[in-house]
């Protein structure tokens, strides 16, 4: 017979694992996207910035995926999770798998994401699980730098030339539908919030909106209208973009299993 408390502990370890995977996958996929800019950014300084932000995100991801692997207890490690899972096993936000397109598009995606991550980490540092709390407190300091970079460029290009303004508004309009998912709780988010592991995402929406609207105003960009249609990356539903991204990211481990640097 299973005791009630044993069931509870097991459930909460599984929630931790799923939550670690959701956040870890999100950081990993965005890091890979930012890495695509290396050698291609408009200026050396921007190249370095995008690579550095990507590196911080890889740091977050390694920590979270290691934790997920540990909780899973099947002998897999962070590399197995990153390089040997199929697209349908990834729980990242849809926004982060969106292709880079041009520099402005990348900046809009980054800005919307950074604003969300700031709100999330500010709350997650009070998680009942010290592993999440520690990471959030550490990463928050880095995220402040990321947000300053993406905010600076968003304002500069939004309130720039006619051409840069037009393109930034276009990217914002195109990406907006994917922002619904940032604060729309998945089953994992709900379960994690219920046991004090993670903040209630509903409490993020107001402050995320306020933060974003303030900067959009300064950037002379128009906040798009919210649409009912939204994506479900956190529920493992992805489009073709993620498959292509993973094909490139995973090719070495898929072709030469177990290979090391």
């Amino acid at each position, binding site marked *: 017979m299973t005791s009630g408390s044993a069931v509870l502990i097991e459930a909460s370890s599984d929630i931790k694992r799923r939550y670690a995977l959701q956040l870890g996958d999100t950081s990993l996929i965005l890091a890979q996207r930012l890495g695509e800019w290396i050698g291609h950014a408009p200026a050396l*300084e921007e190249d*370095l910035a995008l690579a*550095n*932000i990507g*590196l*911080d995100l890889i*740091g977050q991801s390694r920590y979270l995926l290691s934790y997920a692997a540990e909780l899973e207890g099947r002998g897999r490690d962070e590399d197995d999770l990153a390089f040997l899972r199929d697209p349908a096993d990834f729980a990242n936000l849809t926004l982060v798998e969106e292709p880079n397109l041009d520099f402005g598009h990348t900046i809009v995606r980054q800005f919307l994401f950074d604003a969300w991550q700031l709100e999330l980490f500010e709350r997650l540092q009070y998680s009942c699980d010290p592993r999440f709390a520690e990471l959030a407190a*550490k990463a928050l300091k*880095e995220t402040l*730098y990321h947000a300053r970079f993406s905010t600076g460029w968003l304002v500069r290009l939004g309130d720039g030339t006619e051409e840069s303004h037009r393109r930034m508004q276009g990217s914002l309009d195109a990406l907006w539908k994917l922002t619904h998912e940032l604060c729309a709780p998945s089953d994992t988010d709900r379960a994690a919030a219920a046991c004090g592991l993670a903040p209630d995402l509903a409490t993020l929406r107001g402050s995320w909106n306020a933060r974003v609207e303030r900067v959009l105003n300064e950037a002379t960009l128009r906040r798009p209208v919210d649409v009912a249609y939204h994506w479900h990356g956190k529920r493992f539903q992805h489009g073709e973009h993620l498959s292509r991204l993973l094909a490139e990211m995973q090719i070495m481990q898929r072709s030469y299993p177990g290979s090391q640097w």
Partner: protein
Amino acid sequence: MLEREVWQRLAEVPDPEIPILNVVELGIIRYVRLTGDGGAEIGVSPTYTGCPATEVIHRSIRDHFRSSGLDVTVKSVLSPAWSSDWIADSARNKLRDYGIAPPQHAACIPCPRCGSHGTTRISEFGSTPCKALHRCNECLEPFEYFKCI
């Protein structure tokens, strides 16, 4: 080996990216615990979560103690998060002499070469996660700034 001796030997391990600094003055060594069975556990904090130097530092520490016969385990400590405020004063002067402006809570970052306060930030991100790029308006030299975090 006494705990004090372990600290002394740790001060011989350089940071792989800024080799004029050792890991103790960088403020990343959190604790040294002698385990009683001739071993020691050393707590080390990463400066940035994704800093690739972290693994090199862990390895350097283990390698450094290998010849001493002390069985060293390196533990990564995330909390409380490392702060550039923990960099020792001695290290700040070394950084400046090396051409890197040390971290400071001030609006303007003086040039490490000529001391001028007229400097401009070129990029918030530099060659390593911990540094930003600046330029001196007086001597016109670009320089790196160790970011405040």
